[in-house]
């Protein structure tokens, strides 16, 4: 059975490690291969100039990152709200973050901080479902199956269906394990994420089933391929459409196996040590680096699941030593790296979780779930950098004015990527389900 080392498991508030569950139930669905409707959709959604973002890297801090301890400091609030971290200046005059984000503080002109995101789903799996699909979960929060979006497709699946693959890489990839709300829903397996079921920070990192088993000689590999091709020729003349579809997937699989580009993209070991160090030798850091390699090779939507943010108990030591520094390093290195490679304009980077955390520090020196306010950070992909959008009140407890909702976020990503957010696909019952359920483009971001 699969048992992969995926870094330190996170205990969430229910006392059960959901990562543990993930490790047992590791899922590796796969990205779709629909022919791109690229040109039509890009033209339709983005007007004559075309869309900015060719791909999106979605860093998901699962568990709920504390916005006030990171991007939305409240230095004037009482200590039980403010917490132990100090506000520091960034290189954008007037913009402050906490002192736990020293690297990001030096480059705030490269990204935009949106402080007025909020919704009112306080559950982990339900909130994850909401953020990934734009639809309220119809199940109770808890140990839900993975993926938990049984009906509504995740946004990554919508990207897969709308834009299709470019090159040999699948259009929608999850790492280092499936995202809980990241399934294809009614779109079907074709649009499920291709899941890299392995941790790129491990020395023996490799992609599952991408290479033939160890020890097979070149002679055997060559022979196997010839036998299969021979069988295929013999049986092809009487294949029906379903069999032909499977043949197509075999061809895609062979392409992926044979693709130098894919192999190079997955081969994080070939990255210079200096670059790997810059991202941080952490799971999140190396996932961010691998994500960059994947979008360079043509992947459209890379979802990185970074667990461990459900900090109910004695949160500040772990935030200070493990969580925030890793995120600080990964995000700043990713944005800088993309910028230096000239890819930032066409790559949208988003970092967020399913919710923020309570303003008041609780009796166990932790912070609890708080979906009323969260900060989202955006970089590249046609977003206007160097801004702060929106604000929360003096205790970081509520957004000032109406919050930017999940569907505003998804609509914005959709428009940036040249996907018509109002395009509908028919559910199995024949009901048209639009990609994005309402919302409006976030004012000032684009």
């Amino acid at each position: 059975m699969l048992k992969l080392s995926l870094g330190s498991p996170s205990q969430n508030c229910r006392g059960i490690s959901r990562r543990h569950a993930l490790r047992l139930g590791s899922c590796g669905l796969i990205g779709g291969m629909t022919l791109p409707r690229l040109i039509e959709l890009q033209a339709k959604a983005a007007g004559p100039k075309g869309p900015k973002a060719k791909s999106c890297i979605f860093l998901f801090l699962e568990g709920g990152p504390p916005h006030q301890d990171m991007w939305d400091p409240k230095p004037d609030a009482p200590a039980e709200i403010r917490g132990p971290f100090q506000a520091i200046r960034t290189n954008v005059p007037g913009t402050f973050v906490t002192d736990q984000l020293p690297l990001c503080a030096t480059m705030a002109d490269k990204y935009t901080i949106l402080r007025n995101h909020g919704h009112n789903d306080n559950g982990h799996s339900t909130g994850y479902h909401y953020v990934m699909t734009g639809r309220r979960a119809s199940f109770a929060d808890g140990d839900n199956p993975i993926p938990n979006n049984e009906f509504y497709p995740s946004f990554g699946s919508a990207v897969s269906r709308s834009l299709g693959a470019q090159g040999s890489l699948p259009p929608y990839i999850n790492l280092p394990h499936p995202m809980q709300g990241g399934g294809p829903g009614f779109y079907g397996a074709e649009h499920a994420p291709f899941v890299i079921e392995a941790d790129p920070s491990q020395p023996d990192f490799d992609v599952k089933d991408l290479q033939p088993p160890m020890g097979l000689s070149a002679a055997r590999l060559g022979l196997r391929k010839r036998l299969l091709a021979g069988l295929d020729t013999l049986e092809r003349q009487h294949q029906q459409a379903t069999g032909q579809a499977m043949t197509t997937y075999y061809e895609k699989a062979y392409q992926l196996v044979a693709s130098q580009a894919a192999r190079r993209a997955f081969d994080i070991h070939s990255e210079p040590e200096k670059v790997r160090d810059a991202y941080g030798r952490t799971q999140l850091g190396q996932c961010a680096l691998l994500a960059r390699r994947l979008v360079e090779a043509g992947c459209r939507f890379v979802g990185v699941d970074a667990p461990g943010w459900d900090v109910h108990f004695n949160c500040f030591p772990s935030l200070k030593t493990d969580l925030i520094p890793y995120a600080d390093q990964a995000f700043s290195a990713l944005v800088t790296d993309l910028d230096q490679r000239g890819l930032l304009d066409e790559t949208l980077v988003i970092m967020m979780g399913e919710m923020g955390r309570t303003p008041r520090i609780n009796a166990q020196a932790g912070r609890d779930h708080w979906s009323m306010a969260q900060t989202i950070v955006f970089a590249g992909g046609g977003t206007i950098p160097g801004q702060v959008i929106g604000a929360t009140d003096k205790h970081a407890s509520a957004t000032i004015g109406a919050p930017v909702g999940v569907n505003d976020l998804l609509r914005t990503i959709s428009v940036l990527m040249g996907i018509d957010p109002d395009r509908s696909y028919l559910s199995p019952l024949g009901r048209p389900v639009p990609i994005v359920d309402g919302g409006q483009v976030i004012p000032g971001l684009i």
Partner: protein
Amino acid sequence: MNRYSRPYILNVCTVIALTISGGLVSIAGELHVSPSTIALEQPEASQQLIIWGSGSDNRRIDVTRTATLRVEPPHVASVDERGLVRPLANGSATLLISVGELRTSIAISVTRLDNPKKISFRHEIIPILTKSRCNSGGCHGKAEGQNGFKLSIFGFDAQADFDSIVSASRGRRVALASPINSLLIQKATALIPHGGAEALLPDSQRERRLVRWVAEGAHYQSEDIQSQDAPVAEIISIEVEPHEQVLLAAETQQLRVSTVNSLGQRQCVTSECEFESNAASIAHVDARGLIQASSIPGEAAILVRHLGHVTTCRITLPRLGQTIERPIEHNFIDTLAWAKLQVLGIQPSPICDDATFLRRVSLDVIGTLPTVDQAKSFLNDPATNKRQRLIDDLLERNEYADYWTMKWLDILRADALTISPQGAVAMQRWLHRCFAENRAYDDWSSELLTVQGNTSAEGPGSFYKVLNKPDEAARSVSQLLLGVRIECAQCHHHPSERWSQSDYVALAGFFTGLSLKKLPNGEQALISRGGKDLPHPRSGELVPASVLGGKAADFSNVTDRRQVFAAWLTEKQNPFFAKAIANRMWAHYFGRGLIEPIDDIRETNPATNPALLTALANHMRDLDYDLKAFTRSLLNSRVYQSSSRTLPSNADDEQNFSHYLQKPLKAEVLLDAINQSADVVEDFNGWPTGYRAIQVWDNHMPSYFFRIFGRPVRATVCECERSDEPSIAQALHLLNAPELFQKLSHRHGRSRRLSNSNLAPTEVIDELYLSTLSRMPNSAERDLMLHAFTELDRRAATEDVLWSLMNSKEFLFNH
């Protein structure tokens, strides 16, 4: 229905040829016009004509768009190129119609243009909102509306829509003093910015009707006003003409739709209703009801919808110039299937060979590959009735109960997380017993419906742990046992059926009074006490419990309301129950339901072969719901035994069973097949050695293989939940997975045994073929595989031959 009533005939017995959509078709004899006279009484009224003649093949041929049409005098009415007549001025006129040498005419009368009947919001404005898609789900019809303006989806709640337009937002949407400047109209015609762009053309018939409605005071219905008109009679149905039509490739056919009110009056609403094809690749329909046939033979149903009423027109596209050789008939199924194929001009494929039949029927009946020995003995058996005997043998195998239990655990939603492992086991044992003992389906369905008691004891009680709300139970039971999907009617009138919110609530009334009681040992018992009628979600009035399409149920003498439902379900006259299970069984064996999706039986979703489905449902009743006997009839039919190889005339056919439809193996079946072919035993996480995948009731048992091959999550009662879509992850796994490699090279496995044996390479290859594909290789295949033995050592060659066979489409599919 009085379609084609009283056609006016002028010229008879003339034969002319005319060009229709590029093809040359002759019509002979009479020219028919429908309707026979036209009376228009409103400025925005319209009347669709259909003009037709008889073709040489005695088909009705629509010549409306090739006819020359002229109104005399022309100032009274206009007629467009599609045969839509509109009024211009009060008066009488004649519509002169000519098609080649054939001529006819009909009378037109236009009255009351200066004093028309007042417009009814309910009957005339709602269709405009629907046709212009204002109230669609992507627009103002979605639950929260759009930009502050909310309409009910498809206009099912006319009163709410009226309030939304006339009263909401302080009445800013209508301007009685200046109708044309009403926000509603200005927005709809995009004269001021509108997110939905131009939904209505300025000065169109629909816009003028809206303007007049506002000018008349924007009333809900015309009896609100002092008027000389009688109250608006209720619309009781809609009619479409023609009701069915045979078209040839690329032909077109205009539809004509009328409402029928309670006084029997008809009014043309062709330009106001909605059309939808269930098979647009065969016949496409446009917004005005013009059907365009493609070149793919087959059948399509055109759904027509107006104000909650639905009807259909069935289009058949035969393949021409085919001489069909009817294969022999084993039973009634063949008679009806061949009859249908003959009409369509599709030749059935020949009968499959013995090896294919053996593998097919084994995978279909018991979810298990034949062993090498079984394959050898079947192939060498000279008996002529060996297929029939095989079917009988398979139905008595243990795996039959295992496999069908697995299938029903999926659709009974035996999700071990939701109903607890004890509940799943209780359900699994009960189902296993039902199948092993071949209990009658109506009997165990009744038990499923009316179960009470400990949900952890063998039985189906945990079904109600999932369906813990009356309406959820009602819609799941309806979909599962009746094949009727009513969940749409939870929130709004079903868009393509007659089911309303009242029907939904009435059905839910049977499932009230149920509760789960905690037992001293911590387990739960399902108990039923009393029950009550439920309120209508909008009006709040109590709706008496009733079965679909039935009267208020009588609950005297019962304590459990479900018993009344169960009695109705299994009575002979029930229109759904036998049909639903017959269609479900058919779909399992034939790869596709006669009605598809299999649990969406409704008038507007007709069976591809209605006579066959009716016969199967009757057969099921005659057999007293003996599922094994029914299965025997299906499998012994010649139709089931058709080859999956297509012929030129049936390669496009997906719905008429002219050839066997290939099916991907289900995740569990495939895993068992791999293990059996490799001759290894797989240990499932937490299960005793020796269990096979189809026996594992725990749908959460972690398995990468099950995930990627689409094991269902058991969240719905729909078989559609099981995904059989191929993916690259599947291909990668079969090509490269170390797990598969270990099975192929297992020291007690088949490859090792064969490579250590004294068998000649050709004999090794033969056994590998028999173990995977249940057949002997042909000479080309044997030659191909012998390359392995010349190039590699014997062990590697054996493994790689087996590997390539497991990666062949022939292995991955049931064909």
